[in-house]
């Protein structure tokens, strides 16, 4: 009997020894469970870099939404090679357009990454995590969330000028996703989205760094300058001229970090011209490069290299705009090549790295701040010397004659001229569509119906999202 007892005991011991269910809690080795990401300052920084990395994607700041903004307006003559982009170009986008659907999805992917940083970084217990860094990471994530929402609301919502921002914008999600409860927000109004962007930027501003030592980070991470600049753009788009001018000046005054470049060699250069550019390297091919597309692949002709798609040639309208004043050095920054259909066209040289696709995405430049402030001041005060001086900096740099106070007879004329300068400065950088819409111009010169407020000048909410989210039922943009 004793024998039996010993045997049973032995069996039981063996069983208990191995019946430890902790052994089933195995951790992955190539990934980190969400709960283990936000445990230290360094891992928090990695998660923040992940948000920037997501923004490198073609569909985010990798060139595609920017190309769409260019060809929906009058800068780029889309050759129609990609049927999904072609639909957008002809204002006949289908609600099930997969490209639009992916654009929407990946922008939110980046936003939710930022939300996680904003939600979780404050709770990290790490004595080595400096408070200033902690606040800065949250601030950077807020900046990223702001610029991402700004892109989305500009593409999917009518500009503020339509019903003063009361029209529907996009779905606002500011919390991270825990995996268990899926929330189905309806669309917020354009004003609400703008409010969130403004809030994020204003909250971020005091905590952001002035700059970083590494030039790639100084230009590629959110700084005070970047937040000021984005606020300036937000207010400009909303017609809040005073604030637009003030925040632009904040950037222009920070001359330690930002100065107008003397010439046009600054592209992809991380110079003081750049306020915020998405940094791309050779190894980011999977995000932007030859596999998917990139700034350079869109804007370089097919004969410029294997990755050149020739999908972003000049429109004749843009060529004409440059043609009004010959000798424009900005026009000299272009060449001739074949577009996607083999038609010989003019292409920009702003993004020359067609083989690697590593050109940085120039999201905010000092030049824009010059233009913002000039335009805002004229809108406030009519013709004024400061605006003329600001623009003359750009004109002289472009090899054109300077204006003087008597060149224009009215503020409106000057604004038109500033917008023309803005077009020639910022073409192929994704600004033109919103500049036309907010100022009440039609996107296409020959088609007066493509003004702010018209159907289909904004993209449809992807059908996929409407199918999945009950709150979006009946919230499709009119016309779709």
């Amino acid at each position, binding site marked *: 009997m004793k024998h039996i007892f010993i045997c049973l005991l032995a069996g039981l011991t063996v069983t208990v020894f191995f019946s430890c269910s902790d052994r*089933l809690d195995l951790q992955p080795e190539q*990934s980190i469970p969400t709960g283990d990401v936000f445990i230290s300052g360094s891992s928090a920084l990695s*998660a923040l870099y992940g948000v920037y990395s997501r923004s490198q994607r073609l569909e985010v700041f990798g060139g595609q939404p920017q190309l769409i903004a260019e060809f929906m307006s009058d800068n780029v003559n889309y050759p129609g090679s990609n049927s999904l982009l072609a639909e957008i170009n002809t204002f006949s986008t289908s609600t099930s357009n997969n490209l639009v659907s992916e654009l929407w999805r990946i922008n939110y992917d980046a936003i939710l990454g930022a939300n*996680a940083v904003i939600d979780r970084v404050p709770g990290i217990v790490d004595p080595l995590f400096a408070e200033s860094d902690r606040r800065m990471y949250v601030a950077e994530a807020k900046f990223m969330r702001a610029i991402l929402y700004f892109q989305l609301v500009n593409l999917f919502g009518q500009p503020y000028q339509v019903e003063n921002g009361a029209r529907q914008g996009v779905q606002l999600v500011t919390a991270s996703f825990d*995996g268990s409860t899926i929330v189905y927000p309806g669309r917020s109004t354009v004003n609400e989205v703008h409010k969130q962007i403004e809030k994020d930027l204003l909250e971020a501003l005091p905590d952001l760094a002035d700059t970083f030592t590494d030039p790639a980070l100084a230009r590629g991470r959110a700084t005070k300058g970047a937040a000021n600049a984005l606020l300036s753009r937000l207010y400009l788009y909303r017609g809040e001229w005073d604030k637009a001018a003030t925040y632009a000046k904040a950037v222009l005054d920070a001359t330690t970090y930002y100065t107008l470049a003397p010439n046009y060699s600054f592209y992809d250069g991380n110079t003081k011209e750049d306020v915020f550019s998405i940094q791309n390297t050779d190894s980011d091919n999977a995000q932007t490069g030859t596999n998917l597309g990139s700034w350079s692949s869109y804007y370089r002709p097919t004969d410029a290299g294997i990755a050149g798609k020739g999908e972003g040639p000049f429109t004749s309208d843009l060529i004409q705009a440059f043609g009004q004043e010959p000798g424009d050095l900005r026009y000299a920054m272009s060449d001739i090549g074949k577009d996607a259909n083999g038609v010989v066209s003019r292409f920009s040289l702003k993004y020359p790295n067609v083989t690697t696709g590593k050109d940085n995405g120039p999201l905010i430049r000092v030049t824009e701040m010059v233009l913002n402030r000039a335009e805002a001041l004229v809108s406030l005060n009519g013709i004024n010397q400061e605006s003329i001086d600001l623009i003359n900096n750009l004109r002289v740099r472009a090899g054109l004659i300077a204006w003087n106070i008597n060149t224009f007879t009215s503020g409106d004329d000057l604004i038109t001229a500033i917008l023309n300068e803005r077009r020639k400065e910022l073409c192929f950088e994704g600004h033109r569509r919103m500049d036309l819409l907010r100022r009440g111009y039609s996107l296409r010169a020959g088609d007066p119906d493509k003004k702010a407020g018209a159907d289909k000048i904004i993209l449809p909410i992807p059908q996929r999202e409407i199918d999945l989210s009950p709150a979006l039922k009946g919230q499709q943009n009119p016309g779709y």
Partner: protein
Amino acid sequence: MKKGVFLYLLSVIYMLPLIAQVRTLTGKVTSDSSGTPLPGVTIFIKGATSRAVTTEDGTFSISVAGTQEVVFSMLGYANKQVKVEAGVTSLNVRLKVDQSKLSEVVIVGYGQQKQRYTTEAVSVLKSDVIQNIPAIGPQQLLQGQAAGVQMTNSSGLLGGSALLRIRGAASISADGQPLFVIDDVPMNSGSYSTPHGGSSVTPGLNPLLEINPNDIESITILKDAAAAAIYGSRGSNGVVLIKTKSGTTANKTKVQLDYYTGWIKPTKTLDVMNAEEYRTFYNDYITKATGKPAVAFPAKGFDWTDAVNRTGKTSNYSLSASGGNDKTKFFAGGSYLSQESFVIGNDLKKLTGRLNLDHTMNKNVHFGVNFSTAYTNMNRIPVETSDANNPYIAGAMNSPFKPAYDSLGQYVTPSNNALAIIGLSSNKYYTRRNTGNAYATINIIDGLSIKSDWGIDQLNTEERYRISTKVTTGGVAGRTLWQDHKWVNTNSLHYERNFAQHHHMELLAAHSFETSRYDDIRVGGTGFISDNLVNTGSAAVATTTSATGQEWALESYIFRGNYRYQDKYLAEVSLRRDGSSRFGSNKRYGNFWAVSGGWVISQEQFMREVSFIDYLKLTASYGVTGNDGLPNYTYLGLYSGGTSANYAGQPGLRPTQAPNANLSWEETSQMDISLTANVLSNRVQLSIDYYNKNTKDLLLSVAYPSTTGFGFANINVGKMRNSGVDLQITGVAIQKRNFEWTTSLTAGFLKNKVTSLPPVFKDEEGRNYVAGSNNGQRAVEGYSLNSYYLIRYKGINSATGDPEWYAKDGTVTTAPTDNDRVIAGNAIPKVTGGFNNTFRYKNFDLGVNFYFSYGNKLFLSEFRILDDITGTTNLSKDMLQYWKKPGDKAFAPSATSTSWQSGKFKQSGLSTEQLFDGSYLRLKTLTLGYHLPEKLISSTHVLSSARIYVLGQNLWTATKKEFRGADPEVSRYGSFGLVAGESYFTIPQPKTITVGVNLVF
């Protein structure tokens, strides 16, 4: 005193005849079927207590007196009773294999049961149907042998995995393979291959590659829930239990040598044009149709098919020794297999060794070990990936005017020349595997024992490739090492008891813990100065340096109870609680169970009257099993690094997977009703099973709203049903003294239906579907899994010469669109089965085994290439039958068909033009054997049995007349559930002829 005298006298009287007539009866017992000597046969005299056992050479000696009834008895053989007349001292007896198999013990999960009393639906294959067949993996031997088991070789590629479905597919996207268990060790069955050796969708390695079929004693297939629920979360796809051979207690060592050698040819190759046909066709037809200028082809073409095919060779040596005594039993074996495919560049060598030991220390303690080690060495060819690299594809696809060698005998454009790639580059694959277990059993009290079992399965595989600098500038080298190391420990209590005469009870309780660790290490590089620098370390540029790892663990509580009353009423309950590291935190443990009952009707009084029925059993079972074949860590919310998360040269992390704490196993509930009968003096056995399997919680990718940050997540959502009938009839058709014919027919009827899918993708009719392949195969809600969604091709209009299709509404059109696609059948056979026969005449034996598959459709995408005149490839011979004048029943359109030309020559476009009825009947094996006469054997003094044989494999295949493929047995995607029955120049099955010998010493 008086009493004592009486007793003495009585004893004397009793003993007198014994003293007078007692004599020694000697003789030999052999197997009636094979003629091999049978050791361990118990011999006893009816009405007496004396017993004897045959020795290793089958001989016995027993004392008998007068005329006696002597009974010869052995498990697995029918008892034989012989009346021994007085004076007879020598007797040779042949025992028949017990056809009823009722007395046989079948291996079931964590134990064994008598066939007679089991309530589980299992199919058993014994070693006799396994050995001698030149199969690389033993699961190939299941073909046609077990009802309800669909076994389709993925291709003729050596070492490739197979599609093995037990009672239909139980999964769509998770692992679709059954669980393989060798001697209580569940095998690792991951995918250890890279696109270079076969793309991710093409089949991986055979998980049973490293076992020597000659080591196998039996294969048991657990089919219903009653059988498989004991494997819990791994039971849904069915379980294949392999038991390896053990020694005997016969005190004599048996040595067996098996050798065969043979020749291999493809069963059939694709019919493509020869040089003359191509030249004429090009200049007569293609030029006219496409407007291409006429070409003055060289005078002589090159026969690519001939250049890439050869007569393969195979040979196998298998040597084993087995034996033992009362205390220790052993089996030791080794084998060497060498196989050379009929396709150049593909061969395999395999070396295996095994030692099984079992020792009885005393009547209460008993322990043993089963251990095997194996090494394989393969030359692989890329399959179905890059056309130019695969010699078999090049053989069919290369135009006869594509030159192979220049005038100096050098390769022409080696980078695009399959012969150069095979000749200059190397693509090696190695596996090394150690599998085994050690166990100890202690009897605690009578009937109660405790067992501890420790098992390992350590698999190391290695891929090493080197592309010559002549093929790719600078050359390419790569090496990948995979490791999958598992250990498992099971501790069990077993209790068995008869009580109150009619009650029999058996209980099993166990705890098991199993874990495995997977690692891979990859390096790759380019930029080599010379082809003599074979390793990646000499590369100027490192292109790949990577190492990853993952772990998995499973903890289980196992219980089974059997109860039997009066050998008539049977009941079984099994239960398994599995906790897996793959399941979400809310579903960490799952319960799987089954109940079954049986009624041995033939034991009832009223059935005793029915004389022609010897045995009749009705069983029913219901239970729940799972499929844990999900990727590891799927339930966790994850952040990943790498180049998709870095930024400005800084390492980053980004969310890549949404957490899902509810992620769990796929769950199958199965009902089975089975009737087993033995009739006509056990000469015919019949079993018929009806089953209905409902699978739910199928793991599928589901769309999430983008506002979660994730577009998709894997969720347990889908539902599927398999129902069918398994039928098996075995019988001795003829039984004469010198001639015997045994035959068996197996058939599995199956119907599959996908009953629910998530609404991610909807087809034109609004049905949910999950896309499977580029060839229109998909799972569609409300239809069978592996359905084809294709435009229906009608053929060539004999009046106009235009190719025609059916529009969705059934009208005929010359310009179909994607909207005309309909569900055009599916790849799941309605019936599969086998017809197996053994004939014995004197010392000759003849085995004839057929396999058939009926009612499945095959998509042969090679014809999208071979029927396409716009390309530069060779074309199918059928294209020569083109339309010339009204009334022609043509295969190819009129060269001047305008609808064809304006439709961009779409007759080779994706449609039912490439979809074929895949029904076939195949002569799987034909064996003719001869046992050398006993006289001759005994004269050698060393041999105890010798057999020589000739075996043909896949000698003859019948398909539908319309079938144009090389082989109807294709499954390009291996065990991947979502796609079956597709081919893209899939290497056909080999046609093999081997001659061999089985020698027993």
